[in-house]
């Protein structure tokens, strides 16, 4: 039996979860923009804006301590970072392009060896996805095999209803548990109609044809043409729900400090620079090419998935106006 929840009760649900000591993260106003951020109460939840940054920080923080060190007379003492401090979290109002990012990242963080930090956050987070009823001209989730109503990555998926409120559908045990625990805030669906899902103007794309072209066009004038204006600022990577390149750096003093994982980007000039000064990706077109290749062919080869959820943030926010959708359309047309 499908359950529904009113907007008022959804906000009360947040209050109830917060009272249980859970950390609640959701879209929240921050001055003129919306960001995924910790919510103090249900009233702070913003339901009609796609946050400027993706939700990946919930699982993969911009900067995270992996160990601390302290030097003494007896040598160096290294203390393992405390994963148990990672709080039980509810990510609420995650757009399909954001909720879908986490399972895509599972592939890289849990192949061969497990990244305990990412996986602990995944384990302790319940995701309440939210269908989109509105898309802007940058949205292209439909082009990468998702949709504005795709529950991928969501434990519980909310679909806005005509006349207000949401249909709630559980997609995992965590989702079921949440529905059972808070049954008092729910109602049983009684023929309510869902609001029509958004329709991104991009439509679908032939990802196989794009991959086939990429696999045979490592050298192509297109790369110079597109990336000539790329400033290498890394905005696209930092806003992306699935870009996961990171650096490992020590921060602190001579005596004590911490080693941290922090976001990095393949668009940065020194990302691949050798100690000798030699750089395999010496110029921006080579770096931009790696970004596109990683997303649409290398990740496919390695993990059978596309490293893109079509959120549109990279084109919406690129200071040089580089449009990944245009790039893919151009590749599709050539292939």
């Amino acid at each position, binding site marked *: 039996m499908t359950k529904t929840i009113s907007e008022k009760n959804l906000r009360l649900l947040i209050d109830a979860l917060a009272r249980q000591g859970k950390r609640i993260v959701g879209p929240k106003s921050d001055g003129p923009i919306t960001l995924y951020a910790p919510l103090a109460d249900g009233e702070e939840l913003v339901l009609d804006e796609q946050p400027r940054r993706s939700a990946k920080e919930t699982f993969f923080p911009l900067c995270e301590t*992996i*160990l601390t*060190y302290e*030097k003494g007379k007896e*040598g*160096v003492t*290294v203390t*393992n*970072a*405390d*994963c*148990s401090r990672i709080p039980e979290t509810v990510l609420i109002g995650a757009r399909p392009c954001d909720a879908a990012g986490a399972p895509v990242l599972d592939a*890289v*963080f849990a*192949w*061969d*060896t*497990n*990244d*305990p*930090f990412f996986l*602990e956050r995944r384990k302790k987070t319940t995701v309440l996805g939210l269908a989109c009823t509105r898309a802007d001209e940058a949205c292209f989730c439909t082009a990468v095999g998702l949709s504005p109503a795709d529950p991928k990555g969501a434990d519980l998926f909310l679909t806005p209803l005509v006349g207000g409120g949401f249909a709630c559908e559980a997609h995992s045990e965590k989702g079921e548990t949440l529905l059972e625990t808070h049954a008092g805030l729910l109602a049983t669906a009684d023929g309510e109609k869902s609001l029509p899902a958004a329709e991104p103007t991009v439509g679908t794309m032939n990802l196989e044809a794009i991959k086939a072209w990429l696999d045979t066009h*490592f050298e192509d004038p297109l790369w110079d043409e597109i990336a000539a204006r790329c400033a290498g600022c890394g905005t696209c990577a930092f806003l992306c729900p699935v870009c*996961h*390149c*990171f*650096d*490992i*750096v*020590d921060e*602190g*003093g*001579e005596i004590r*400090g911490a*080693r941290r*994982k922090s976001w*990095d980007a*393949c668009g940065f000039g020194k*990302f*691949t*620079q*050798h*100690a*000798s000064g*030699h750089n*395999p*990706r010496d110029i921006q077109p*080579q770096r931009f090419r*790696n970004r596109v*290749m*990683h997303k649409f*062919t*290398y990740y496919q*080869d*390695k993990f059978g998935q596309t490293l893109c959820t079509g959120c549109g943030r990279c084109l919406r926010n690129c200071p040089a106006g580089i449009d990944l959708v245009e790039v893919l359309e151009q590749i599709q047309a050539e292939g």
Partner: protein
Amino acid sequence: MCEASKNIYLPHLATIEEIIQETHDIRSLKLIFQDEQVRENFTFRAGQFAEYSAFGAGESTFCIASPPTRKGYIECCFRAVGRVTEALGSLEVGDTVGVRGPYGNAFPIEEFFGKNLVFVAGGIALPPLRTVIWNCLDLREKFGDITIVYGARTENDLVYKRELKEWQERSDVRLVKTVDPGGDGPDWDGQVGFVPNVLGEAAPSAANTVALVCGPPIMIKFTLPELEKLGFTDNAIYTTLENRMKCGLGKCGRCNVGNVYVCKDGPVFTAAQVKAMPQEF
């Protein structure tokens, strides 16, 4: 706590037992693991690498330069050129460093049994082959002829000078050492010339032989055609790719050449494998 055994980024601690100043800016460190269990159980294969850290400065990637046939310690060799290597270079005997590893694949030494070996190295790229050289010399009877061609810009830039002398004096090793023109001192008893040319002149036979090549990209570029002229096939030539790395675990996204992760699929590749990659290294 995150279970310590599960934090893949946590290094073992090791004490610097000995420091060898190889050149004015290149050092070797001999390291002993502080934890007794690690000391006893740490095993690796020739060609594998590790992440070495100076706490407060960070981690750097170098090969394990000592051979797996010598137990109880490992060695690394690096040039002080950046924040981490300068910090590692300023440490003293008795100081602590971090070591994560071993990572990556290795030279298939067992496949080389019964064959002749030709090592070709330039500059600071001898350490990744030195581990193999000693590994093979420690099992000397399993291999045929062993030829080592090693060059650097000047006599002073050669690393492992004591060992070069040892190899030179051994009757079961043919060492051809060279420096670039003008790099020789009054006592220089080796060749003068660029490694690929000197290799061509030394002309080791390709029959039943594998070649192992490490050096700066420009040296490798000119060495491969020389080996081809001598009759080596691309499957009989091994090299290592020395891409910049951070995690060493196939996650941080830095070391890839096309869809190949150097840290997981490498760092050891045959020339045939390297030629099949996008030429971006």
